[in-house]
């Protein structure tokens, strides 16, 4: 499909591509939000600056996907980002989870180990997905994937560096990292899945099959874990499937913050 108009003319295709775009957009939007809560709270100032760039890139990717949805007649990109209920969101549950105990403005006892593992595993999953999307049958999405791919090299390098160093570091770091890996793996399947409409997406050439993508992610992770003194536990979707609109309380509170000003007057120009 070359354009939004063509896709709109084919209801089955449109449903599948919209579903995929919501997953991609909502994943990036919510993880960028969680990342932005870290602003000013990272282990050192230099990392605060570097981490913020990654969050900006990721929020920028979400904006690209929301614009693709807007072009498909789903409504204004800002409304899609700010004004959809939790039940309508398609992001993985892992990505909505709070950064740790506390609040971004009060006693944030955020867990850097969890941040590193979640962002690293997500960046790798995103990379696998983006590689596949470069050949998407939906041309506007394939074009977007080529652009987004450029920024993923840095995200991966950045998180992989923190990940391998902390896993092999001294003191309490390996233990904290192990706990974080266990925690992330409990919900990582929710990131890797394309949800109940995944088979349709693959059949229409929008993206490759979920099984194939998941296998690629595992292959990449194995390469990283191979020299490390730990192994990757099995990935699960313990708290359910975000692609089906299943979410936790963490998403509700996130959406309240994200939309606080927007919802004061959704038709105003801000």
């Amino acid at each position, binding site marked *: 499909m070359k354009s939004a108009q063509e896709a709109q003319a084919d209801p089955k295709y449109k449903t599948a591509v919209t579903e995929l775009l919501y997953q991609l957009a909502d994943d990036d939007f919510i993880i960028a939000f969680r990342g932005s809560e870290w602003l000013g709270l990272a282990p*050192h*100032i*230099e*990392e605060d*600056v*570097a981490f*913020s*760039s990654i969050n900006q890139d990721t929020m920028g990717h979400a904006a690209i996907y929301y614009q693709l949805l807007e072009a498909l007649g789903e409504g204004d990109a800002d409304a899609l980002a700010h004004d959809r209920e939790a039940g309508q969101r398609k992001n993985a549950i892992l990505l909505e989870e709070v950064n740790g105990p506390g609040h971004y403005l009060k006693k944030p006892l955020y867990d850097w180990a969890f941040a590193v593992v979640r962002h690293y595993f997500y960046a790798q999953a995103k990379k696998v997905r983006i590689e596949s999307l470069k050949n998407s049958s939906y041309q506007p999405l394939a074009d977007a994937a080529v652009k987004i791919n450029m920024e993923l090299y*840095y995200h991966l*390098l*950045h998180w992989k*560096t*923190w990940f391998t*160093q902390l896993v092999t570091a001294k*003191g309490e770091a390996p233990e904290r990292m192990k706990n974080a890996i266990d925690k992330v793996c409990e919900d990582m399947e929710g990131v890797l899945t394309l949800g109940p409409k995944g088979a349709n997406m693959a059949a229409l050439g929008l993206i490759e099959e979920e099984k194939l993508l998941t296998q690629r992610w595992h292959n990449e992770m194995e390469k990283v874990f191979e020299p490390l003194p730990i192994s990757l536990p099995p990935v699960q979707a313990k708290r359910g499937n975000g692609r089906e609109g299943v979410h936790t309380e963490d998403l509700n509170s996130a959406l309240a913050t994200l939309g606080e000003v927007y919802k004061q007057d959704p038709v105003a120009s801000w």
Partner: protein
Amino acid sequence: MTNNGREFYQEFEVFSSKSNGEQVQHQFSLLAPNEEIALVMAQENFMRRQPVADIWVVKRSNVRKMTQEEKGSLQRLDNKEYRTTKGYGYLKKKWRHYEQNILDEKEILSWGGDDKK
């Protein structure tokens, strides 16, 4: 023994080049526990709004700087025209006498151009 994480703050000097083929230039310094982390901090801290083609990070302790006293050794007399074209300016007039042009910088550096004619 712990050092309260104090040693985490190692000093690195950051250098970068703007584009392929350009010389590297000093940018600034940052703190990081090792070169790998220093390298992934560098671009976003100092060059997030400009193109970069390459980055070097160098541990500050590996840079041998000059002391203020040593900087005194950098001074030279201004009597070295013989080393520059300034000392040979009279050739221009001489060559004019033989109806030839002087081979100045502009002329000589233009020879590197692709004149396949």
